[in-house]
């Protein structure tokens, strides 16, 4: 069930009162059952899969605890290979098979390999990484062993962050199960504020821009440079609203329950370079890739060339994580390239080449515009239905036909920009503290802010029940 659906409201109405009435083990059991119900609502067939992932991660970690170093590595390998194997089977089997068949056909070798029509379980990428973080941290003994399968299973399946993140590390979340979190006014207020802003980002920002984007990306030949440029910019904010909105709702629900999931988005389009962008966008995934892939590969400790290699491998796999398509891989490649070029530029200070004195604000705006533009270029590949469509859009934009036609499309465009402007304004005004942490404001201000969000959602929201984009990952 989606957070913006009526069924979730009924689910919450049943869950939260019970949650706060129960204590200790009973509360954890409630969380686990509710989370499995929540997940099963999407597709009950895959409940076994999440249970399997949980059991593998739990028992291999338990086995590590009682083994010598050699077997610890073995159990780590079992956990990583089996969990990633499950992920690869469900997510990438078809992709690798088709790619291999295409590659062989280029070599004039005909191959007729079976492509199984495998349904992708919702949230598999998220909970797999979440479970793996526990196993890997246990191997390095960064966290204590979780003795209770019940607690661990609840950690993996906890419904607010189950299907689309944030990916919360075991080291952060597991200790929070040790205490019962009472219902506090602060948690309830902050949590509801986060949920409200998250819903706003989803149903006002993302779902308003979505139809404009879909119409153009689904009919690439029918639109000129102007329309495609608009749709790319709109997609940049659609995916931000969709994903950041979902994350905020998840974090807000967790906050009401007394959990701290961390933050997952921090005004990414205000970044002045790509390192900063990846510290602000999908923070839980980018930090996971940094800690469990980039750093183990060597990070930047083994010289420049190896650090570039490690960056590129990390970003390529980060792209592949998003979906089984060369478009996603290329998107990851572009971001890897951006990061490498950024490092190269950083090593050659511009000031020694071009001794310009530019006002700080102009320099800031220029850098933000550059990062945003390059990010938008990469989003073309992320969103397009195919490789060919991506380059068709690029070539149409390059043609420079920015003539504006009259009609209803302009109404949607104007509305979209107005909403984007509002979101950027709010982000800019609150840049020195998390947006949703309004507890430094007076109560009347907070009440007014929430009322304003409700008015805007009623006035501008799209209630067609569109799914969150990141569910497909």
């Amino acid at each position, binding site marked *: 069930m989606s957070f913006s659906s009526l069924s979730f409201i009924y689910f919450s109405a049943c869950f939260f009162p019970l949650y706060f009435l129960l204590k200790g083990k009973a509360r954890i059991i409630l969380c686990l059952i509710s989370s499995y119900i929540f997940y099963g609502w999407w597709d009950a067939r895959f409940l076994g899969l999440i249970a399997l992932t949980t059991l593998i991660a739990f028992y291999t970690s338990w086995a590590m605890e009682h083994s010598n170093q050699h077997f610890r590595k073995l159990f780590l390998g079992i956990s990583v290979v089996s969990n990633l194997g499950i992920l690869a089977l469900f997510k990438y089997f078809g992709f690798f098979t088709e790619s291999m068949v295409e590659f062989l056909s280029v070599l004039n070798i005909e191959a007729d390999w079976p492509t199984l029509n495998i349904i992708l379980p919702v949230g598999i990428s998220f909970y797999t990484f979440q479970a793996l973080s526990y196993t890997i941290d246990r191997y390095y003994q960064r966290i204590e062993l979780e003795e209770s399968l019940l607690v661990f299973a609840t950690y993996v399946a906890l419904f607010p962050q189950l299907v689309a993140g944030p990916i919360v590390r075991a080291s952060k979340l597991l200790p929070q199960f040790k205490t019962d979190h009472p219902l506090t006014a602060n948690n309830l207020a902050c949590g509801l504020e986060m949920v409200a802003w998250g819903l706003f980002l989803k149903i006002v920002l993302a779902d308003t821009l979505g139809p404009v984007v879909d119409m153009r990306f689904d009919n690439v030949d029918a639109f000129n440079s102007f329309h495609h440029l608009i749709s790319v910019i709109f997609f940049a904010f659609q995916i931000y609203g969709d994903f950041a909105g979902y994350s905020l709702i998840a974090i807000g629900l967790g906050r009401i329950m007394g959990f701290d999931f961390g933050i997952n988005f921090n005004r990414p389009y205000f970044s002045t370079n790509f390192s900063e962008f990846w510290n602000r966008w999908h923070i839980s995934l980018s930090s996971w890739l940094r800690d469990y892939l980039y750093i183990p590969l060597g990070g930047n400790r083994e010289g420049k060339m190896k650090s570039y290699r490690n960056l590129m491998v990390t970003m390529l796999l980060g792209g592949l994580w998003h979906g089984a398509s060369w478009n996603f891989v290329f998107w990851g490649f572009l971001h890897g390239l951006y990061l490498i070029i950024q490092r190269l530029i950083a090593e050659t200070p511009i000031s020694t080449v071009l001794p310009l004195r530019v006002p700080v604000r102009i320099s800031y705006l220029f850098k933000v515009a550059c990062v945003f533009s390059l990010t938008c270029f990469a989003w073309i590949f992320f969103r397009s239905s195919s490789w060919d469509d991506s380059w068709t859009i690029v070539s149409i934009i390059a043609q420079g036909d920015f003539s504006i036609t009259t009609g209803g499309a302009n*109404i949607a465009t104007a509305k979209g920009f107005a909403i984007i402007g509002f979101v950027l304004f709010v982000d800019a005004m609150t840049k020195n503290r998390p947006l949703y942490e309004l507890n430094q404001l007076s109560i009347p201000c907070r009440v007014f802010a929430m009322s304003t969000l*409700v008015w805007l959602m009623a006035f*501008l929201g799209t209630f067609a029940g569109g799914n969150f984009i990141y569910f497909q990952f």
Partner: protein
Amino acid sequence: MNIAKTIAKPISIVSAFLILTFTGDRIAGIALEQFTSNSQYRFSRLYAGNEDATLVVVGNSRAARDFSPTKLREIAGGNVNNIGFPGMSMSIAGAMLLDYLDLNQHPKLVLIEITNIGDPGTHELLNNLGPFAGQSERLQSLMERYIPDKAIFFIVSHLYRYNGDMLPRILFSFKTPDLDMPSAGRITPRMREVLATRIVEPLDIAKENVQALLEMIRACQENDIRVALVVAPYLPIHFDRIGNYLEWRNDIQRIVGNDVPLLDYSVAINSDQYFRDGVHLNNDGVDAFLTIANRDLRSFF
């Protein structure tokens, strides 16, 4: 006592939030309603009353685009109101025409473009007619019947009524009436290829739409308003693929009776250059069509 104190503050905060949200919604709703009433947009003018058109046209996009009020003015010898709209089903057309007759001066002639007499689908347009929900019991009744969830939201939130495509149109036409719906575009060779092979569903007649049509005719006749049914032109290669056109047209004539003229312009225009797609004329096409329809329409005035 402690429990009462503990819950008093949250309850008062929640109450303040609910009261503020409700009050703000109603105040904004009143402001937007005033704004809508003062706009020159076609539906705003309809519900503001005091329209004095000689000719009223109603129907779906084929009525809205193909019957230009600016060009029809000379034929009608007076103002022309086109209250057609893309996606308007016959039920919605019926509700709005009857509202028009209740609130405005009666025209001499009502033209009803009848290609929306078929399956009404989801009554999508009703979702966007929220701004007028408070002014029309007929529209409210249709909303309660076909979009009941939204009808409830329209009652709960007056701001929500203005959520949709209608408010920008009301805004853009605030000072200047939206008389014509511009129709640029031409049939390209590629479009022609597609249209020549595309499957065209047979025309049908939905029972609820027949009732709406008969109500419109009856209302006109009871008020001594002349009424005529009309079929706007089709692109020839599209028309050829309809299959049951004659049968459909004859069924409608039989239903409404011979005293209601049916002006059939389905094949009046036979050149691609006058169409923007299979069922709509472009601006040049509208000129050509109304030149052809001139004599028939003048006879009503």
